[in-house]
């Protein structure tokens, strides 16, 4: 099958493209930076560019759309332009190019209003109540995409929950950097039960989705390891793998959420480019439960996660070898 992967320069996009190549598919990648995926035709460009998008989808039978603005801060308009309009543009181009299947990589945060999630399935995307511009725009994009689902143009959304692995800058390196400087607190003693997705499991689930469109088109599925852990233990596991001390001090979750909301606003207002130390979104992620019912996902995708949480942590430790800490202190 000829498959286009957008956003293939990110951790997850690259893994998806590589897996497709390994499976013998003809793979095209599309993003602003080089994808670094061997044996894939690499188109460079932005989802804001109609012409570039049209060129990338030409001839593809399947599309996996990962390109998105992923951040805790930034101007709302930028999120709208990339995540909502970019998806709209891609959908339009793919349909007119005769693409048969499109998998949108989404996020469980599209249906998260901030309350704890314990063992639920994929609730409908809800832009109105989603917290933060990222979640809001991803929710809008998912609604757009699923509305476009049709017998001759099948669309499904896959929502991997907190993807991590060696080389992950979103969670792993941020945790290690902050814990390495003793600046990572636990919220409410780190008890919140959180499920995550090791990157190999996320990529295999996304590729499985492309093969199982017949069973899943028109729907959104949450994907995770199916191994909820208290967040404190999870962070301790990541720190141990990176060779830095685990967080040992706790602040009340409510305080962190309130502080995060203020910091988020200040950061955006001040126009700072680097990610802020605490955001409301992050505080919520670290202080409320998020774990999901994976039974239906696994059945529909005919897929099970191949790498367990503990195996993933072992791979992470292997990746950092002598330890992340040493690198932090060198830099």
């Amino acid at each position, binding site marked *: 099958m000829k498959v286009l992967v957008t956003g293939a320069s990110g951790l997850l996009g690259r893994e998806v493209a590589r897996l497709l190549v390994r499976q013998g598919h003809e793979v095209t990648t599309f993003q602003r930076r080089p994808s670094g995926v061997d044996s894939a035709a690499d188109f460079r460009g932005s989802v804001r560019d109609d012409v570039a998008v049209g060129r990338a989808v030409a001839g593809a039978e399947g599309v996996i759309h990962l390109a998105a603005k992923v951040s805790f801060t930034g101007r709302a308009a930028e999120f709208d332009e990339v995540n909502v309009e970019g998806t709209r543009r891609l959908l339009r181009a793919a349909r007119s190019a005769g693409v048969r299947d499109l998998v949108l990589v989404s996020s469980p945060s599209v249906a998260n209003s901030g309350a704890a999630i314990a*063992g639920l399935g994929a609730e409908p995307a809800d832009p109105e109540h989603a917290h933060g511009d990222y979640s809001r725009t991803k929710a809008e994009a998912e609604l757009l995409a699923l509305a476009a689902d049709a017998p001759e143009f099948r669309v499904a959304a896959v929502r991997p929950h907190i993807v991590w692995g060696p080389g992950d800058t979103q969670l792993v390196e941020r945790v290690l950097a902050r814990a390495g400087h003793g600046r990572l607190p636990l919220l409410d*003693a780190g*008890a919140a039960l959180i499920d995550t997705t090791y990157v190999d499991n996320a990529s295999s689930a996304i590729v499985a989705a492309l093969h199982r469109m017949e069973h899943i088109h028109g729907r959104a599925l949450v994907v995770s390891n199916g191994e*909820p852990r208290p967040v404190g*233990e999870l962070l301790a*596991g990541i720190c141990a793998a990176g060779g830095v001390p685990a967080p040992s001090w706790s602040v009340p*979750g409510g305080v962190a959420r309130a502080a995060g909301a203020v910091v988020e606003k200040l950061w955006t207002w001040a126009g700072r480019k680097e990610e802020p130390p605490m955001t409301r979104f992050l505080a919520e992620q670290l202080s409320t439960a998020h774990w999901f019912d994976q039974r239906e996902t696994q059945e529909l995708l005919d897929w099970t996660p191949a790498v367990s949480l503990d195996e993933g942590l072992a791979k992470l430790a292997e990746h950092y070898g002598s330890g992340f800490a040493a690198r932090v202190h060198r830099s």
Partner: protein
Amino acid sequence: MVAAGWPGVDWPGVDPEWSREVAVASTSAADPPGTVRRWHLLDNGAQLSRRGLTPAGTLLCVHGNPTWSYLWRSLLAAGSDPARPWRVVAVDQLDMGYSERTGTFRRLADRINDLGDLTDALGLDGPVVSVGHDWGGVISLGWALAHPEQLAGVVLTNTAVHQPAGSGIPPALRLALHPAVHRWGTTTSDTFLRVTHSLAHPPLAADVRSAFMAPYRGAARRAGVGNFVADIPAEPSHPSFPALSGVAEGLRGLKVPALMLWGPRDPIFSDRYLKDLISRLPHAKVHRFEGAGHLVAEDRDIATPVFEWLAELGRDSGPGLQRTNAPADGVPPLWAPLTELAAGAAGGSTAVAEMAANGSVARSLSWRELEQSIAALAAGLKEGGVEHGSRVSLMVPPGVDLTVALYACLRLGAVVVVADAGLGRRGLSRAVKGATPDFLIGIDRALAAAAVLGWPGRRISVQDLPAARRRLLGVETSLAALGRRGSGVSPTLSCRGPAQAPDPDADAAVLFTSGSTGPAKGVLYTHRQLAAMRDTVAETFGISPGARLVAGFAPFALLGPALGAVSVTPDMDVTAPRTLTARALADAAAAIDATVVFASPAALRNVLATRDGVSGGGRQALEAVELLLSAGAPIPEPLLAEVQRLLPRASLHTPYGMTEALPVTDISLEQIQTADAEAAAGTVAGAGNGVCVGRPVHDARVAVVPLAADGTAPGTDFMTEAGVTGEIIVSSPHVKEAYDRLWLTQRESTSLPGWHRTGDVGHFDAAGRLWVEGRLAHVVTAPAAVVTPVGAEQAIERLDDVGLAAVVGVGPSGTQAVVAVVETVPPARKAGPASPQLAGRVRGAALAAGVNVSAVLAVTAQPTDIRHNAKIDRTRLSRWASRVLAGGRPGQP
């Protein structure tokens, strides 16, 4: 005659199509001849016929004051189910709800007649079951008595037909009736309505409360509410008293099936009214919803039980209990061995004894003295008003007095209610009130609690009390006085032979479950079942006349005289098993040269902790013990092995059972060691994963109903195949008769005819031994597997720094996350997530037992039951774990 439905129907839970008005010609004395009254009803009859459904009959539902037909909406909805259609006619009484405001004062007799006028106008045909609540209960029963040809059954919820003797009307009603309050409270203001609505547990939703209030907005619409209250016949001179008495007396002749659904948290219609109703309709099926109140139809789902009961009406050949038991003859009464021993050569030797704190015998009776004391007390109790079937609550610690009182009551055919302090103060109070004893025999402390907490029953002290104390506690007499009185009565009352024994199938005792899995339940035993329990204990453990036992554990201890065994009560606070010291045990054993010891696991722990206090003579006495029985909770093998060193000659047995079946299986220390070794070696299929409790006791059959993926045991097939996990069921002559006033619970427990469902889960091994894996209610349904807690808990508890462990689930059924909650050694400073290191080890231990644990939480101490101090309240832990793991602040479980 049928008017249009009430305009603008917007009552949550009500289909607008049910609402209708009917014009009814009145024949009531309150109205001049020729008067036509307008009634409002909720009636699903037209809807059923429109849908082509033929109802099995009609439920005629009558609300009380100050509600309206809205109260019965759940019955209307259930009756509209095409699978089992019933027409449900819920009326708004005149001057109430949306029916006409007549401007008349309608008394009880009018209201009963009004209802008949309505059913005449409706032309109801086919069987009718009346349903009533509050004062609507009386009116529905009045209608029922007037329409015997149509009546197929009666359903009553929190109502009353009679003010029981010796009790005043409830204070809340007295207040509402007070002339200074009455008009203002019931009519001028909506206070009476608001107070009634506030009786719901949990509180009514705002829209439901508003629907209940809707027809009563404005004083003019509330005249009926006030008149209803004024028509309560608080005394015989009241004009409605004859009508009420007529219903109350007429009820005794009512033979149709009856169902009573009751909310005991009712300040008006408390349990004593339920008791009165049961005495009039003894065949009624009764279910008390513990925690529910006056508005029981709002507090609980009453539709399901009502319709299940209706379905049974169609099947039953008639009302009343259907006994499958053998005929009465040939069953020696429970106390037969006692009577024989008293009359025999050994009649002068010690039968029962009580130890003093200093190690000497404080009190004892010979067999002859025991027999005489029992006979005298029985005669005295009879003189004092205790009859066959009277309920007598015994709140006397084990010892001579309790033994005498217990056997005296049993001989009289009274039903003994044995609620122990192990239920905790609240649980005990709830249990006693629910059982509604006629008499309460208690020590001073129990009588004081009875006075403070308002426990029912005429009060009898153990010893004679000073007059002032007697008045203070409301005590009528004492066991001592009754015994003196009885010994003067004709000796024919001493009930010697089986001829005077009560019917073996009559109720004999109400015992209580420990309440570790919900409110304590009363468990009813007949004389035949108690005798069977005695025989099972005698056969299984080889306890025969001549045995001498130390009774440190109440349930079995009471069987001593029935077994013909000498029994001695050690010096201890029986409400706290862990107060039994090694020295007290040894002193008691020495006093009678004991051959058998009964002690709870908690007591054994303390005995071991205090073993250094035993003297040489005491040590010899313990060394002579041949048998130790310890029941109530599992005992770890290492603990038993230590006990063995203290009782080197004794065979150590830990029977498994429950209040509903004592005992079910038995196992000895050697057998435990063999089973554990075989489980470790994997040589016997099915050995392992749980606590091995051995093989069924004499006369008992045990099997399991396999578990389904949702963690329930829904099937009807049962088996004993090795390795199949399921709900444990038991069948035996010594299994309970029924749960007391818990019809629904009883039905569930006997859903497999002839078997008692224990609510425990476990499996057999290939050697025929039963392994208990936990409670059915505590099964965790993880996505990949149904997890029973005990196996993983045992694996976790083997870690050095872990004390008690509990495995619970959080999240939705079928996809639960498994959580291990552990006590650490030394104890954690505060409750919360375990350290990553401990969590890792706990997770590893559980995984070795085949269980994948998501989270590990540490607690300072596990919440355990009071009686055994061993059963962990997993339901509470699971709620706490859900809260903590959702990201809340830990707090305490």
